């Protein structure tokens, strides 16, 4: 079976991710198994060889991301998948992929950290790492699925954004979403929008500049290509001391993402025009929100929410709109507070930001805990 047939399935999140990647045209996977992302490696190893693709288990995570960068330059759509400890090891190469404008997808299934932490337990501690983990001036595209269905659709979107903007894209999921099984509807392939990287015309020589998103040749297509992580000009020639070349390159790399924030941003919202209490959530934590909001409204508290499907670039304008309406914004997270600071920055003092945090043991913030917080904050006059 080449592509999963259109139908309703009962799949695990990791499986849906693999099928989404395959539907996007991914034909190269390199990874090193790690809980809770191992099933991605496992399914890729089963699926890709049957459709003329390649799945390799590398010696570690550094080699894994190195291999997908190489595969991308060979013309393939390529992906790797890991969890916290492996994601830490991949940081240098994420910067390399960014600097060399290499489209690829990195899946990070978050577990409880730091370090080995609790390998089988869910967490959301890598949110800031996904934005700032690599060194230097960098802009990230990071997506956050909250269902098995979105493990499919956002994997497709991750590939599309990577190809469109010629940049690494991170699918930041978590143990709950990737290990759970839910029904998922696979659409007919011809209805799935697929974006492919722009190819150069014969005779073109500038693959790193003249245009905001330059065309990308593959090796063995007859172009002279120099790929380097050092500062380079439009033609890939190294300039390791020139301030003008560096500024031009790195500003363009960042601006091609920052200037398209609105287009990249994706979120779900409810009642943000008319709420006293707002909630901003993402990933597994968001699964508690709707029930809590319904119960709060039944008790007369006007409540609304934004659920981020794209975490980075951060949708500042949308968050600010919510802050203009709501008195308080509660930010539930399975960490000791990460996105809450970004919400605080974006809301510019217009609303009071209330973090709601929980860590350890893979226990989610329950609708009851969130409801209690909503009711408490609605009652308090501060």
């Amino acid at each position, binding site marked *: 079976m080449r592509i999963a047939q259109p139908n309703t399935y009962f799949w695990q999140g990791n499986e849906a991710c693999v099928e989404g990647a395959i539907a996007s045209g991914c034909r190269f996977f390199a990874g090193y198994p790690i809980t809770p992302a191992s099933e991605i490696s496992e399914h890729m190893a089963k699926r890709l060889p049957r459709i003329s693709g390649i799945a390799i288990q590398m010696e570690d995570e550094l080699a894994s991301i190195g291999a997908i960068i190489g595969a991308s330059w060979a013309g393939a759509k390529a992906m790797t998948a890991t969890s916290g400890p492996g994601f830490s090891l991949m940081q240098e190469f994420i910067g390399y992929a960014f600097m060399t404008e290499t489209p690829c997808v990195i899946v990070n299934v978050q577990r409880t950290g730091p370090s080995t932490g609790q390998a*089988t337990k869910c967490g959301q501690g890598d949110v800031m790492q996904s934005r700032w983990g690599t060194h230097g001036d960098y802009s990230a595209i990071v997506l956050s699925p909250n269902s098995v269905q979105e493990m499919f659709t956002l994997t497709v979107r991750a590939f599309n954004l990577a190809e469109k903007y010629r940049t690494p894209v991170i699918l930041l999921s978590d143990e709950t979403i990737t290990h759970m099984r839910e029904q998922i509807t696979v659409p007919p392939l011809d209805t799935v929008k697929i974006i492919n990287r722009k190819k150069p015309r014969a005779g073109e020589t500038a693959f790193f500049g003249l245009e905001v998103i330059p065309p990308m040749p593959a090796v063995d297509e007859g172009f002279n290509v120099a790929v380097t992580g050092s500062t380079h000009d439009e033609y890939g020639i190294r300039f390791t001391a020139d301030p003008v070349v560096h500024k031009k390159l790195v500003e363009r790399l960042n601006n091609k993402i920052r200037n398209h924030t609105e287009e990249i941003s994706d979120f779900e919202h409810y009642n943000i025009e008319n709420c006293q209490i707002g909630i901003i959530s993402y990933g597994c934590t968001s699964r508690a929100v709707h029930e809590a909001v319904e119960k709060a409204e039944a008790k007369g508290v006007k409540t609304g929410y934004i659920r981020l499907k794209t975490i980075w670039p951060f949708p500042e304008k949308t968050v600010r709109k919510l802050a203009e309406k709501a008195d308080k914004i509660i930010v539930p997270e399975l960490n000791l507070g990460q996105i809450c600071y970004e919400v605080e920055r974006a809301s510019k003092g217009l609303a009071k930001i209330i973090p709601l945090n929980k860590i350890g043991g*893979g226990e989610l913030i329950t609708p009851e805990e969130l409801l209690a917080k909503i009711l408490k904050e609605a009652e308090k006059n501060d």
Partner: protein
Amino acid sequence: MTDKIEIRISGLGGQGVVLAGQVLGKAAVCSGKNAVQTQSYGAEARGSAAKSEVIISDDKIGFPMVRKCDILIAMSQEAVEKNVKDLKEGGLFLIDTTTVKNVPKTKARIFKIPATETSTKVLGEKLYANMIMLGALVKITGMVNEESMEKVISNTFPEKFVSINIEAYKKGKELARILFP
């Protein structure tokens, strides 16, 4: 009134509680319901506490974890101690009597099933106890279609393990029919 059933299957790693949850969830989806199955287990491959949860509903399912269960299946003594507090009053409590010796007082309806013993005696190994419990569950509750369950078992297991697992599932139904007529 929404039809929502929350089930927890608990035991030790290696007993197949996660697999039992998967099969149940898949059968529910096959009969047109919404279902979510989650699991929790230790870093060890076998022997540590493991549980699998299934929520079956006609509506969209938000929070995927079971907080209070309508049905609790316990396959180890530790599982009983840990989980019985989350069982709803009047809920169903299915116990594998081979692995659970002390049954606490509860306001639930208790069903004692010698699953592991039956698995060993009838099928030669203890590892089919999960499908026996599932068979008993289906017989007691009628929550999913008996035939669609068999269909799901046959397309979930590798071919050479299909018939013995179906046998175990049928044995579970038979036990329930005899024990709880």
